[in-house]
């Protein structure tokens, strides 16, 4: 189980995170939504260990963890494209995934297989994003943090991607934290959804709660 407690961070006078508490079970998919600038990416980077925050206490399987990325216990999909454009997709798979089993899983995906011999620069934005999401989801870590996995993905490919994330969570007991403004996809993928507002996480049981917390129109002013 991943537990983040007392996560607090400010950029100057802007206090984006105020004592956030988050718990993710193995195999659970947790969705986090919130307005732009509310601290979603900051929270993910703090959990990954690439951002020094003002305060945070994090444990994985009851062990205190600092800089989780160093141990391979947490994988991360950043918002922006990150695959080297000069490399072929097959080469990228061997560099991004340490285990042959996870490489086969991505290589055999119906949308990735035809592109194995192509350079990343020859892929469309959507194809590249799809590949990046699969790489982060299939990385043999205990937890995966996906920052905007549905952005740039065509509607027709979102269902398989959602199913792939859920299947990976189930089969590998991998916990996921997903943030995206495609909130209907987040609601459909996640076991539970949280709204990050005012520097704190609040539970949302459906679209009505998203309105109530000011994320979608029609809620509080």
């Amino acid at each position, binding site marked *: 189980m991943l537990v983040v407690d007392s996560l607090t961070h400010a950029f100057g006078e802007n206090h984006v995170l105020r004592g956030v508490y988050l718990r993710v079970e193995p195999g659970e998919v947790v969705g986090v939504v919130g307005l732009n600038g509310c601290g979603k990416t900051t929270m993910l980077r703090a959990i990954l260990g*690439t951002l020094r925050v003002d305060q945070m206490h994090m444990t994985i399987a009851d062990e205190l963890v600092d800089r989780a990325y160093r141990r391979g216990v947490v994988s991360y999909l950043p918002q922006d494209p990150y695959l080297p454009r000069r490399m072929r997709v097959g080469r990228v798979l061997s560099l991004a995934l340490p285990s042959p089993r996870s490489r086969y899983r991505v290589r055999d995906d119906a949308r990735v297989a035809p592109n194995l011999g192509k350079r990343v620069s020859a892929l469309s934005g959507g194809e590249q994003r799809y590949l990046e999401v699969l790489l982060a989801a299939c990385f043999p870590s205990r937890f995966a943090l996906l920052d905007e996995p549905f952005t740039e993905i065509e509607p027709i490919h979102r269902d398989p991607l959602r199913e792939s994330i859920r299947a990976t969570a189930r089969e590998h007991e991998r916990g996921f934290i997903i943030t995206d403004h495609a909130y209907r996809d987040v609601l459909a993928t996640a076991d539970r959804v949280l709204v990050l507002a005012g520097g704190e996480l609040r539970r949302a049981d459906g679209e009505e709660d998203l309105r109530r917390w000011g994320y979608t129109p029609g809620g509080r002013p």
Partner: protein
Amino acid sequence: MESSIPLLHRVRLLAVYSRLVLVYNVAIAALGTSTLLALRAAGIVGEAEASPAATLRFAVVMAGMIVATAGHWGGVLVAHSVHRSEYALYRAGGWGRVELWLASWAVSFVVGAAILVAGAI
């Protein structure tokens, strides 16, 4: 908690990054050495009337020194500017930025030393 990333995988990622930096490093070293040779020919640095063999040795020694030192950090700077987004790939192998820069320096240092040794023979 032990790392779940195999050592071989980490080394492979380091090799990819080191090669990237080395490409820029060699280009910087070539540029630096050419500049020094031009200054030498103009008599601003060293002997303007040196023999071709002495000039060649000077070029090799300078190239080796640049590759092992300033060329590496120049290469890191260029790679950081041009390929910044790719850090996420290396991070998946457990590499932080500073670790990558320092570890790849070992590769640049060995290549620079090899050039120096070649110049000494």
